[in-house]
């Protein structure tokens, strides 16, 4: 992969050749549709997001935001259309995409019966990059879970689970971070903390895709926005 | 589908059992030895069409043969009917699932 560009091209969409070496856009959707059972959650969506530019995803519940993020994360595949992430095909190069993209979602991927620390250590070891397990403690401290590292997740509140999910995301050091309601279930203090963490991520060159109802924070963190209604792009 | 096949099997078994009460009794006695013998020695095959190979140790049993035909034909009719009931609607005439 080419190194990510520090230059932030302005968000007008399609043409992204103004980036330096990073010619590949972060996300390239071409006529993407996704069907669940008989319902079309996304319909003919085409969109390009350059690397380094961060995207605010808005829309009502059920408008297709979560589906879009899950598609971009490659955890599911589109029914129709093609999808390229960081220049890689989301189907054929699935594994390579996953090494650079993380998804922070409502379903936060934790094992309820393992402790916060065991959960993160598992992720670090499975990723297999050297030095990752050593970072676990620092990250748990950073998200404010230091006192509860050895409690099983089953005893966590919703906000603490969210914090743990953020630590998991930071551990994986993504080039593209997909954040589905990152501020949900957090107290005001937590929201401020998360916003700071995300601003830091962004300053380090990570492309953010943020789906949130907190427009104020969302707009501060992003450069572009995409509004979905009934699985279709509106603005 | 499965249900009626099961029912059908049950009904036919009943019919066949009723029809062949006497024959079945005789067959039950002859049956075991017959099958074992048959496994060992086979008669020299007849090459002339229509000629009887032998009378057969097991006499009668036509009701079982008829039962097999009834099961097969009933099955065909019912399955064809089920295909017709499920035929795709709104297709151009002539290509629909009429059989």
């Amino acid at each position, binding site marked *: 992969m080419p190194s990510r560009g520090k230059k932030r091209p302005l968000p007008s969409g399609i043409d992204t050749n103004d980036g330096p070496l990073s010619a590949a856009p972060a996300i390239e959707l071409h006529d993407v549709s996704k069907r669940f059972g008989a319902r079309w959650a996304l319909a003919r969506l085409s969109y390009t997001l350059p690397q380094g530019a961060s995207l605010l995803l808005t829309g009502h519940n059920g408008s297709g935001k979560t589906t879009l993020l899950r598609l971009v994360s490659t955890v599911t595949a589109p029914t129709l259309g093609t999808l390229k992430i960081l220049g890689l095909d989301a189907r054929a190069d699935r594994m390579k995409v996953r090494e650079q993209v993380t998804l922070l979602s409502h379903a936060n991927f934790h094992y309820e019966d393992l402790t916060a620390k065991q959960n993160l250590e598992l992720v670090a070891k499975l990723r*297999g990059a050297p030095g990752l397990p050593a970072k676990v403690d620092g990250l748990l401290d950073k998200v404010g879970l230091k006192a509860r590292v050895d409690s099983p997740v089953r005893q966590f509140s919703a906000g603490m689970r969210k914090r743990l999910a953020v630590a998991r995301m930071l551990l994986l050091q993504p080039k593209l971070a997909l954040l589905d309601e990152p501020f949900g279930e957090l107290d005001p203090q937590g929201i401020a903390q998360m916003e700071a963490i995300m601003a830091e991520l962004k300053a380090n060159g990570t492309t953010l895709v943020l789906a949130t109802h907190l427009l104020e924070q969302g707009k501060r963190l992003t450069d572009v926005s995409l509004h979905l209604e009934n699985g279709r792009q509106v603005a | 589908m499965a249900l009626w096949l099961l029912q059908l099997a049950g009904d036919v078994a009943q019919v066949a059992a009723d029809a062949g009460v006497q024959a079945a009794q005789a067959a039950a006695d002859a049956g075991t030895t017959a099958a074992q013998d048959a496994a060992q020695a086979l008669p020299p095959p007849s090459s002339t069409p229509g000629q009887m190979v032998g009378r057969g140790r097991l006499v009668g049993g036509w009701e079982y043969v008829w039962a097999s035909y009834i099961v097969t034909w009933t099955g065909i009719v019912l399955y064809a009917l089920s295909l017709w009931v499920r035929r795709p609607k709104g297709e151009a005439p002539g290509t629909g699932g009429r059989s």
Partner: protein
Amino acid sequence: MSGLLGQSLLVLRKDLLIEWRTRARLNALIFFAIATLLLFSFALGPDTVMMRKHAAGYLWLGLLFSSMLSLGESFRIESENLAMDGLKLIPVDPRAIFLGKTMGNTLLLWLLSLVLLPVTIALFDVTVTLGWPTLVGIFLVGSMAISAPGTVYAAIASHARARDVLLPLLLFPILIPALLAVVKATHLVFEGDLMDQLKSWMRLLGCFAIIYWTLGFLLFPKVLEDD
């Protein structure tokens, strides 16, 4: 990447860790299996000769019923919080998930069979004629044979409607060859192998296990990933 085998072992280790941290569930499974054996012996009545003759069958039926619970459970923990999606995104090779899960289910079933063995001996008055190592080996291969198709089908059933009904419905008929072979082999160990049949039954069981570990390894990614 820590390699296919490394990831498999990590998945296995994780499953065993969860199993250990939820020991209450494990105990419930063991009691369920013992209760099944007890029920069989009640249903059979006090005919000792018959009980001894069919002991191997009841032991494996009890294990089979318990395996439905443990297989379902091993994928329930993955659907809580969509943990399986999380594993896929780390990323973990789906084949490593298959190997890890199947090894975990094999170990659990093997452990269960070893726990049930003394109960069987006590309830049905059997003797181990051909030696303990043979028996323990048969239990291991038998557990392997049940776990491989079990893991694939549990993964499918865990995403479908009415998963609790679906899993045994799909799995029982597939497992009949393995069940016949392992029951026969166990029976021969209990009653003595006068006609030297144990080898052919073990060969059948081994073939079954190899076929399904291979098939599972090849097909599991299709079950897990959208294509």
